[in-house]
């Protein structure tokens, strides 16, 4: 965890030297946050939400609207965006939490489309297909000093602080009794109910929390892009986050989404510089991954470690320990 944050924190020092730019690190980090929140459902709860872009978008729009219509500042705007997304998450969660598997997935897609459609059609509120333009990055006032977030570096550090908070909170969450019950529900919903857990309430809370994280990421994204537009809510975006989680290995590791977001955005930028059709190549890699390495990058890493541990004859007890300890990666 410290490693991840430290690497991210040091990016302003070396990123431009390797030919990249600070904005890229910012975007990767926002996607990491979004993917981590999404993985609370997909990886830890076994709940396939394929319309999660909606909550990312709701966060972005809510932040923009609060700023432009209600003159909200930085923290009020972010908090407001999270509250609005949490509200929609709770609302949608109430409709889907008694479902599972394919029905759950289909309902999340349907609701995702509802939000996307609303963003396109409610011109008066959302600006239609143009979206909300000129969203500002407000000043962060800490009482003693005001910090201008208009430069990408300053904003990056602000977002990093929030990212670290989300990271710690989600880490605690998945190792807490709540997270462990969620994991049990993922494996066997019926047995979880028969030992006395409230399956519906756990699924509902997980959805609301996951949507809230997406909302926070969306609000940061609106600030990063200085706009909010329907595309962030599209089925495309919802699909991207699923691909990030799966490629990274979110099903077997907490860090999967972090790895996945990094790989995805880097591929987009590096491959995208050479060819318009980068998504085609990325899609092919994704297909190969799903076929041959369904546990993603983190899964491959864990397998490699297990094999390495087994090869060391002095320490035979380690091999199974690696396999069944999801926090190692």
């Amino acid at each position, binding site marked *: 965890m410290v490693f991840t944050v430290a690497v991210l924190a040091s990016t302003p020092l070396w990123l431009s030297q390797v030919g990249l730019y600070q904005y890229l690190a910012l975007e990767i980090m926002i996607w990491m946050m979004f993917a981590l929140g999404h993985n609370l459902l997909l990886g830890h709860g076994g709940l396939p939400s394929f319309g999660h872009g909606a909550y990312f978008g709701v966060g972005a729009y809510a932040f923009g609207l609060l700023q432009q219509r209600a003159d909200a500042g930085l923290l009020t705007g972010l908090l407001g965006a999270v509250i609005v997304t949490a509200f929609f998450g709770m609302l949608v969660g109430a409709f889907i939490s008694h479902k599972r598997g394919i029905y759950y997935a289909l309902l999340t897609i349907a609701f995702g489309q509802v939000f996307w459609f609303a963003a396109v059609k409610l011109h008066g509120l959302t600006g239609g297909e143009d979206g909300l333009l000129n969203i500002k990055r407000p000043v962060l006032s800490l009482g003693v000093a005001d910090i201008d977030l208009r430069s990408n570096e300053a904003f990056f550090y602000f977002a990093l602080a929030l990212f670290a908070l989300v990271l710690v909170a989600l880490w605690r969450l998945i190792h807490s*009794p709540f997270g462990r019950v969620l994991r049990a529900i993922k494996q066997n919903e019926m047995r979880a109910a028969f030992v006395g857990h*409230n399956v519906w309430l756990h699924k509902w809370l997980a959805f609301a929390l996951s949507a809230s994280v997406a909302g926070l990421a969306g609000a940061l994204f609106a600030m990063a892009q200085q706009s909010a537009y329907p595309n962030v809510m599209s089925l495309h975006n919802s699909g991207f986050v699923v691909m990030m989680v799966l490629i990274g290995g979110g099903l077997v590791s907490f860090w999967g989404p972090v790895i996945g977001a990094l790989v995805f955005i880097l591929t987009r930028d590096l491959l995208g510089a050479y060819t318009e059709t980068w998504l085609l190549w990325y899609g092919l890699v994704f297909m190969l991954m799903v076929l041959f390495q369904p546990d993603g990058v983190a899964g491959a890493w864990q397998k490699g470690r297990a094999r390495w541990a087994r090869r060391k004859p002095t320490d035979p007890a380690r091999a199974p320990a690696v396999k069944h300890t999801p926090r190692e990666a």
Partner: protein
Amino acid sequence: MALFEATQLHKRFGDNVVLESISLSFEEGQLAGIMGPNGAGKTTCFNVLTGRYKPDRGTVRFAGEDITGLSPRRIACKGVSRSFQIMNLFDDDSALDNVLIALPSVRRQGYSMWRDLGRDSAAHDEAATILARVGLAGKEHAAADSLSYGERRALEIGVALAARPRLLFLDEPTAGLGSEGTARLAELIAELKRQLTIVIIEHDMNFLFRLADRISVIHWGQVIAQGHPDALRENPWVQRSNLGAAA
């Protein structure tokens, strides 16, 4: 008054009447057996008693309280636990975690999102004690799906026990076990019997007749006979429905 009492239960699926009119009562501290041929409605009966299905008619009372139609979760929280005929475990988790997640202490803090359950040594000790009790000491960290068939059967009971029930339903606990496994299971159940009320569905007549204080025979969705095992052996109904032959 009986600890658990079901009166005139009726359950149908479409045109298929599975439970015609079942009345059963289980006394505190006793071990009750339920037997009957395949398709007699034994497992459906369990499912109605433990809340998986709502009965169409009839009432279920536990410890003086009407629990008819309550959800499995509610019934579990009141102190009724069950194992399953087809194994129903948290397969990716370790044996210890399977038991851990079913403990009442973990259930009570099921909405705590900050505390690290991994550091709750009291809960871990409790879970390890239960595993040792069902004969799985030393298997704490093996994944449930890596255990042998007999061990999984034992874990199935361990998970049911973890909920600290007053009443434990066991659905065909010997299914698929060899004679050695069955003997070990009989020992475990004989020991558990001293501490809690148990109801067992079972095909293995020898097993059931040796352990049970009272047996009910279910056939065509009805209780066709009940009583002490010795009395039942002589019962013409039991003999005629080909159950006595196996005993």
